[in-house]
């Protein structure tokens, strides 16, 4: 079967269609949707949400999950903020420090998971509370507001009046992830370890190490998302992802799941996660513009998740019947 046809039948294409459909819907219902400011805000928020989706995606490929994405993201952001405020560090070392903290917390998750042999659900549920609790204790729940101006002005910049530079960061990361999982031995080994750990081990892959790497990468990406928020708001705030970082969980799962990342592990789609997270952000923004109450937005998002999964099921069985899959 030809490549173009296969793409038309793919999950990613389905998402593109949905994005266009809702785009048209929102812009006809609310003209403000296409205003420069609204588009700018949409891009800025998507940039962060996509990053959060990536952070979860790289753990889902191990067949596990990471409930502590939010806690790690905030922890990394607070650490970066502290470095900049307490030592007056310029933003580059501050960001590197923050990402290192994300990597360390993620790696800690990974090490505990492979050493204990317990499911990542339990471990990251626990570390979510621990990381967040320790962070609150150390920061006394105070924000760091003396952030390097170069860094915060980046988050507020507008390219051509509508594009948030944060989107560029997200695209760069998306490309790096695609390259990692498609064109490097390391990324492929991570996928094999996630798909069939026994076969991976017999093939000489260090499965535990790969799983730890996945969690470490998840921590780094969560850190990137946290620091993006710092750059955007101009401060590192302990509550920026809600209590225990829980506000991140829905976007974290929605992106990868809508995007076709296999929950049992071993298969991902970077483009799918990107589109999935974008769709979710767009829906939220659109519904907010239409002044739908915040409570309803959560409900709609939940319904969207359910609908997406059901539609995907229908698409698959249709393809199977038409013998296209």
């Amino acid at each position, binding site marked *: 079967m030809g490549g173009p046809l296969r793409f038309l039948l793919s999950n990613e294409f389905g998402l593109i269609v949905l994005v266009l459909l809702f785009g048209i819907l929102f812009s006809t219902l609310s003209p403000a949707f296409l205003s420069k400011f609204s588009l700018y805000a949409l891009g800025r928020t998507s940039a962060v949400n996509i990053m959060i989706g990536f952070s979860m995606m790289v753990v889902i490929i191990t067949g596990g999950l990471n409930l502590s994405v939010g806690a790690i993201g905030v922890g990394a952001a607070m650490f970066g903020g502290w470095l900049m405020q307490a030592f007056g560090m310029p933003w580059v070392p501050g960001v590197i420090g923050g990402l290192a903290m994300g990597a360390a917390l993620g790696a800690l998750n990974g090490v505990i998971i492979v050493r204990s042999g317990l499911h990542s659900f339990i471990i990251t549920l626990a570390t979510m509370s621990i990381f967040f609790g320790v962070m609150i204790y150390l920061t006394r729940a105070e924000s760091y507001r003396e952030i390097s101006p170069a860094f915060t002005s980046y988050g507020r910049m507008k390219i051509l009046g509508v594009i948030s530079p944060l989107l560029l960061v997200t695209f760069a990361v998306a490309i790096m992830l695609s390259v990692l999982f498609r064109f490097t*031995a390391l990324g492929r080994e991570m*996928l*094999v370890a996630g798909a069939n750990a026994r076969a991976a081990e017999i093939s000489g892959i260090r499965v535990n190490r790969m799983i730890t790497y996945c969690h470490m990468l998840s921590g780094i990406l969560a850190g990137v998302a946290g620091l993006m928020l710092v750059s955007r708001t101009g401060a590192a705030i302990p509550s920026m992802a809600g209590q225990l970082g829980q506000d991140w969980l829905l976007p974290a799962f929605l992106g990868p799941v809508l995007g076709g990342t296999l929950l049992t592990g071993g298969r991902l789609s970077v483009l799918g996660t990107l589109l999935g997270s974008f769709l979710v952000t767009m829906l939220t923004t659109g519904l907010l513009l239409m002044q739908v109450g915040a409570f309803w937005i959560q409900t709609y998002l939940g319904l969207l998740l359910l609908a997406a999964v059901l539609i995907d099921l229908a698409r698959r069985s249709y393809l199977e019947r038409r*013998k296209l899959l």
Partner: protein
Amino acid sequence: MTEIFNAQGILKTFPGVKALEDVSVSLTRGSIHALLGENGAGKSTLIKVMTGVYRPDGGTMMLDGAEYEPQNTHDAIVKGIGVVHQERNLIPRFSIAENIFLEHLADQPLRRIDYPKLFQDAQRWLDLLEIDADPATPVDRLSVAKMQLVEIAKALSLNSKILMLDEPTASLTPHETDTLFGILRRLRDDGASLVFVSHKLEEVQEICDSVTVLRDGQNACESRRLDELGRQDIVRLMIGRSEMIPDWVARDRAEGQPVLELSNVSTKLGHKAVDLKVHKGEIVGLYGLVGAGRSELAKAVLGKFEITDGEVLVNGISAKINSVADAVGRYRIGYVSEDRKSEGLVLIHSVLENVGIPIWRRLSQFGGFLTNGTVRKHTVPFIQKLEVRTPSLEQQVGNLSGGNQQKISVAKWLAAEAQVLIIDEPSVGIDIKTKAYLHELIRELSDTGTAILLITSDMPEMIALADRIVVMNEYAVMGGFNNTRDYTEMSEGIMGLIQGDETAAA
């Protein structure tokens, strides 16, 4: 003999593959019917169509004179068609007994399960099939052969009118096969109709009455009496030409420094003071009955099981192997697993992604970057030589026929350029034509200097390939001798050693 089942003009396609095209078959009561064909010919697909796994895209089926259109697998069972699929379908953490009676248990979902009775009933099947295991054992603790036997017990317990067995003997030893055949003959004499798939033609000729051969998804012959056909006739129907039997000579390469040496190795699993040497370019056959501890020994060498005493030497130097990654990465020891489904392959990944796994690291450049082009260059020759039947290299391995999956599982390591290759039951489920190519590849590999340890329960394969044969029994090496390629002499020698007859050890 009366007809019980009949299929006409069956059609089934998958994306890019015509698996069955106008296939017909007819079964009679009280007979064993062979279903033969090369890997990917469509045998399993036909069986799945008959048992309600797949809906055919065309054709009709009649069962007992009535139209038969199974809606699902349960439907087929209710109508009297039982099946042992080629791929294992046991539920991992459930006990043997629960697995055997799964269908019965599912029938009455709310009734309390009488476990003592369940175990007792299961024990009867275990006794019948001579499976030495407690019915309460979780099935994932069993060896591949025992799992296969449990799968058979599960199908037998349904007392079906028609029983289909898709390569039931692929991972059984001759003795277990004999036991099974005794049971099958009794079922036949009681009037059941059996369908038997196997790539071992000796078995087919021993037990079957009639035969249908498929080639490229079409009938090469339909329900012919087997006693009219000789082995060469069947082979010609299957592969379109006669069999090629290479006349290699065994070579004496047991000289110089062994590449792999086990010196006095004991393991936690019970291996006792095992000594074994494999030299450069040598193929050493490790023979033993199931349960002799051969695969476990291989995995101990690989670092998966702990060695408690003695040592493993690679090129004369004591090897420190703490994990399989050490064995593969540092000492270039490869292992083709006997269990392709759980240890050999990643079923949800593509052919190309599977076959390159062991060489990714070596082929990557500029700090870990890898292109499919380089992977292709190193693996495609093996995929072609083994005639893997797949619509493309991007096809998911799980969608290939069983035999073609096996070829990928082996090709992956043939391409890996290991210095020591341990090959465990390489030709399980591989058709006779490809088996000859596979043997050729293994010989060629040894000619390039690879030291090969071949574990196989297939005596003809052992005698065809090995330069030297070492016999193991109950976790100990009983002795060894050079292969003269004289079948009778070798098999007597092997059996002698297994029974502990010292004089056989020359």
